[in-house]
């Protein structure tokens, strides 16, 4: 590791255990740091450090923002079209991460094959929840639906806990460990992949909603479910498709972030809170709002933690929301409320 070859040789000659070379080194200068650089390196100019740090925060925020946007779009889609507050969203995010774990670790599938498998599993679970729980509750009062969804979320989380235990699991990824470095900014391959995959999924979701027959039927249902039904749209199918699509986006976010972080049963709690924050920020039911909201939240967290206080990282997003709600209570991109 990092130690200059001739130095390492001397050490090996002197000491029996090469593993301790660095520490047994009698050299009077300070020990090399992890990367092999000596800590007495010249201090970079303040300006360069500030620019580097700013760019690094920006890159971090973009990567995180992609995943946040996926979470937000899934939630806002379901709320906008079905008028259902989906309290299983966090559990579906967790489910996606565990599906990825099962597919890639337990079943040994290739990483790039495991990802679509996890997303499809999320789609299927979403469809199942809609058919079993929401379809019979159509027309029921919003409180009933909400309670049922909270219950479903608890059941899902507890089942995960029961099946996998509380100890976190790691999902290995096939990318090289060494980061890509440019302009003093580093990004790992896996994070870059997450950003690209999230962007592709967001574009895919837009294309589906704006360019396909199913998407048109969804938008029609969004505007007025009764009229859409009169025009021959099978609203039941649209609801199932919407919930499944929203769920698959949450599962996709979990499957993408699982390998970046670690996977554990309560990982969805914070994700769900953030998804709600993003949706409120962007305006309930607005897909563009959720996309931008995801990036705004990531930027707020990243720069808030970087320049104000890391202890309040998770609070930053909520401070922004309070500010937005005070200035524009319907959120940044809310559609005008339909009357009648």
């Amino acid at each position, binding site marked *: 590791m990092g130690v200059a070859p001739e130095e390492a040789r001397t050490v090996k000659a002197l000491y029996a255990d090469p593993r301790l070379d660095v520490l047994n080194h009698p050299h009077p200068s300070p020990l090399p740091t992890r990367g092999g650089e000596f800590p007495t390196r010249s201090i970079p100019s303040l300006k360069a450090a500030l620019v580097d740090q700013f760019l690094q925060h920006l890159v971090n925020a973009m990567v995180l923002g992609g995943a946040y946007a996926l979470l937000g779009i899934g939630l806002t889609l379901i709320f906008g079209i079905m008028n259902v507050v989906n309290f299983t969203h966090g559990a579906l995010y967790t489910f996606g991460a565990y599906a990825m774990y099962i597919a890639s670790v337990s079943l040994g599938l290739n990483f790039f094959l495991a990802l679509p498998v996890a997303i499809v599993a999320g789609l299927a679970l979403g469809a199942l929840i809609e058919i079993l729980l929401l379809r019979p509750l159509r027309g029921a009062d919003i409180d009933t639906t909400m309670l049922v969804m909270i219950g479903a979320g608890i059941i899902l989380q507890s089942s995960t806990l029961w099946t996998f235990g509380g100890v976190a699991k790691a999902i290995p990824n096939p990318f090289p460990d060494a980061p890509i470095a440019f302009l003093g900014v580093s990004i790992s391959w896996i994070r870059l992949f997450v950003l690209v995959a999230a962007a592709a999924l967001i574009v895919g979701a837009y294309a589906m909603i704006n360019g396909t027959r199913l998407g048109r039927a969804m938008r029609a249902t969004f505007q007025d479910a009764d009229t859409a039904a009169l025009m021959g749209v099978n609203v039941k199918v649209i609801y199932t498709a919407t919930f499944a699509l929203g769920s698959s986006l949450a599962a996709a976010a979990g499957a993408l972030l699982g390998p970046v972080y670690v996977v554990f049963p309560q990982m969805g709690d914070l994700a769900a809170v953030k998804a709600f924050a993003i949706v409120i920020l962007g305006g309930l039911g607005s897909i563009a709002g959720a996309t931008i909201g995801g990036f705004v939240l990531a930027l707020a967290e*990243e720069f808030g933690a970087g320049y104000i206080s890391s202890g309040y990282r998770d609070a930053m997003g909520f401070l922004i929301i309070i500010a937005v709600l005070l200035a524009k209570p319907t959120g940044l991109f809310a559609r005008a409320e339909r009357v009648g």
Partner: protein
Amino acid sequence: MIFRIPSMEMAMPTFRIASIAALALGLAAPAFAADTIKIGVNQPLTGPFAASGAYVVNGAKIAADEVNARGGVLGKKIELVVEDNKSNPTEAAAVAEKLITSDETPVMMGAWGSSLTLAVMPKLEEYEVPMLVETSSSGKITTSGNPFVFRISPPSALEAEMFAPMVEKIGVKKVDFLVINNDWGRGAAADFGKMLKDKGVTVGLTETMDASAQDMSAQLAKIKGTDADTLMITAAVDQLTLVFKQMAAMGVKKRVITTGGSQNPDQIVAQAGAAAEKTMHLTTFLPWDPAKTPDPKATDYFLAEWKKRGYPFAGATESFRGYDGVRTIAAAIEKAGSAESKAIQKAFWEIELTGLNGPIKFAKSGPAGKESGQSKPGVYLIQIADGQISEVKL
């Protein structure tokens, strides 16, 4: 979240203890078998500290089985009543209350994290039940005047004191801290910071991270830009793994030293791989080299039993706390001559035994008249190099 579904971990002990009790029925007099001495175990089995809590509980079970195989204490078997505090201080206090009032445990072990233990402490005073603290390292636990607390883990000031002679030899000049945002992490940053300043080392940033945070990139971007040569990190194993991976991803190249003894380095090696290379860790147990531990025979027995039960080796650095904790409690009950809280509390002051990381003997700590017990365990510095773990000799 607010629901109570027992995890696998919680379902297990009843099952295992029941089968052991059934076995005991055949050997011991039936009159004793039904009558047990209960020990409450308050650990995080879900939430961010789940890995560590599960290790401690599994270590505790080994000790309980060992004690029972020798005939128990005071002619009775001991029984662990394990409860999950969900890594949450409010839950930890509720669990303590439940163990004391509903299970009527005369003595407890817990509660892993400093914030969890601090939340339990008022309950100990309220019900006058002693608790053995096996992991927590916040100084406040033994200095706030709670006479029901007996701690076998090192407070961070003691960790810092034992690390002090190594500072110069390693070549530490300027230190940044990245700590978990609770009593444990902030306490460690304060105690180590004080020691380092006394040694003439410059202390730079102190960055914090939420207990459940998974993304530390903002903090690391800030740390990357400083001229500190060393980063000291205080967090539990899962978060450490993430920090190391994210440091590697962002190209943060500094010497890393972690504190707190909840690193489970083998798990870090397995999960963080190359990102954990050259990191150093202050720990309280050396399972990698049983011959160097204070009681090699006990270490061998414990590690063999740990392996036999199919637990991952990585857990040994934490599980020994549960093992030592229950053995200490059993010794106190034996000494007390009765399973009464008051007698056990008194007996804690009189016992002396050799734990897996050194002699366990409680010295008085905190305000006079209301002292807590503090034992002085060994602290070791280990390093990960080429995926191997070994003690750093300076």
